[in-house]
């Protein structure tokens, strides 16, 4: 049966602004299927973003939505969650927004283990502003600001999230459409900070500069490189070089920030 996306979309907003083949639309659809699977109530759900093509997502969806300042989505989301701990809080955005300008907010939201779900669309580039390199642009690849190849080493967002203290970290790609909603749903159900990194395609500013003939080629590349986490466990470091490990990479239980803060309030009031 065709999935009824319309019930979660603001009327009259389609077609969306994203380019032909842009994976952000695939992630948006996965997010809506995950929200549906978790039966989140619209009025009890907030979706927060910063700035960028990926960050345009909240404009299309019929929830409490915030389109904030570049890199600051996690900070605004923290404020919402602290004020209304019963609210389901989701953050969406790109690699530039999340781990370049917003890197500090990102790591500290992970460290606090605040109960929210952050879907990070990593398309390896600043799509919106014309394809400048981001901390996620693969070394050697071309961007408008690295026409001779990017000399910088690359952030591994999932590893960064685990290192910073997120208690649920998962990775998939825009090719793996059904895994997107499954992992986001797992992240929503997890109590604590859940990061879902979706390796995404920007055919317009990344693909065409890096010898992908079409968006289909970008999808096929994701398909080829993906290795499920269980299989990766049986492979050597050399075999895994350049591969994309997909699935739930990390899950642990640790005290959640709003609950810890409620304890602080209790202690302070007893003084």
């Amino acid at each position, binding site marked *: 049966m065709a999935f009824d996306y319309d019930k979660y979309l603001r009327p009259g907003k389609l077609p969306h602004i994203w380019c*032909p083949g842009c994976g952000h639309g695939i992630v948006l659809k996965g997010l809506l299927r995950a929200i549906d699977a978790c039966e989140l109530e619209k009025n009890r759900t907030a979706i927060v973003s910063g700035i960028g093509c990926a960050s345009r997502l909240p404009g299309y969806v019929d929830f409490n939505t915030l389109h904030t300042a570049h890199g600051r989505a996690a900070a605004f989301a923290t404020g919402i969650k602290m004020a209304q701990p019963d609210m389901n809080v989701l953050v969406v955005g790109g690699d530039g927004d999340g781990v370049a300008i917003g890197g500090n907010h990102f790591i500290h939201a992970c460290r606090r283990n605040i109960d929210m779900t952050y879907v990070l669309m990593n398309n390896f580039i600043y799509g919106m502003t014309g394809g400048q390199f981001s901390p996620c642009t693969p070394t050697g690849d071309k961007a408008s600001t690295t026409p001779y190849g990017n000399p910088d080493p690359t952030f591994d967002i999932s590893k960064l999230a685990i290192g910073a203290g997120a208690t649920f970290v998962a990775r998939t790609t825009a090719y793996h459409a059904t895994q997107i909603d499954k992992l986001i749903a797992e992240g929503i159900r997890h109590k604590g900070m859940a990061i879902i990194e979706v390796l995404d395609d920007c055919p317009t500013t990344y693909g065409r500069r890096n010898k992908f003939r079409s968006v289909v080629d970008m999808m096929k590349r994701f398909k080829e490189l993906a290795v499920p986490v269980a299989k990766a466990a049986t492979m050597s470091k050399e075999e895994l070089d350049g591969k994309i490990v997909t699935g739930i990479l990390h899950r642990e239980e640790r005290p959640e920030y709003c609950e810890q803060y409620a304890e602080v309030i209790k202690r302070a009031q007893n003084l």
Partner: protein
Amino acid sequence: MNTPRLEIIEHYCKGCSICVEFCPTNVLEMDGFLAKVIRPEACIGCMQCELRCPDFAIKVHKD
């Protein structure tokens, strides 16, 4: 099972051809910058096209 009914919402389709490439039974084809159903009888209802379309432009109705 009845053959599913495919619906293409033409004013949403941006012509990326993802649905065409990943349909396992070659039901779809590009007609310029629009996806077109060319072999409706071959559709197995796998939903790949609907799942992957970034633009909400293709629906697979199985009722």
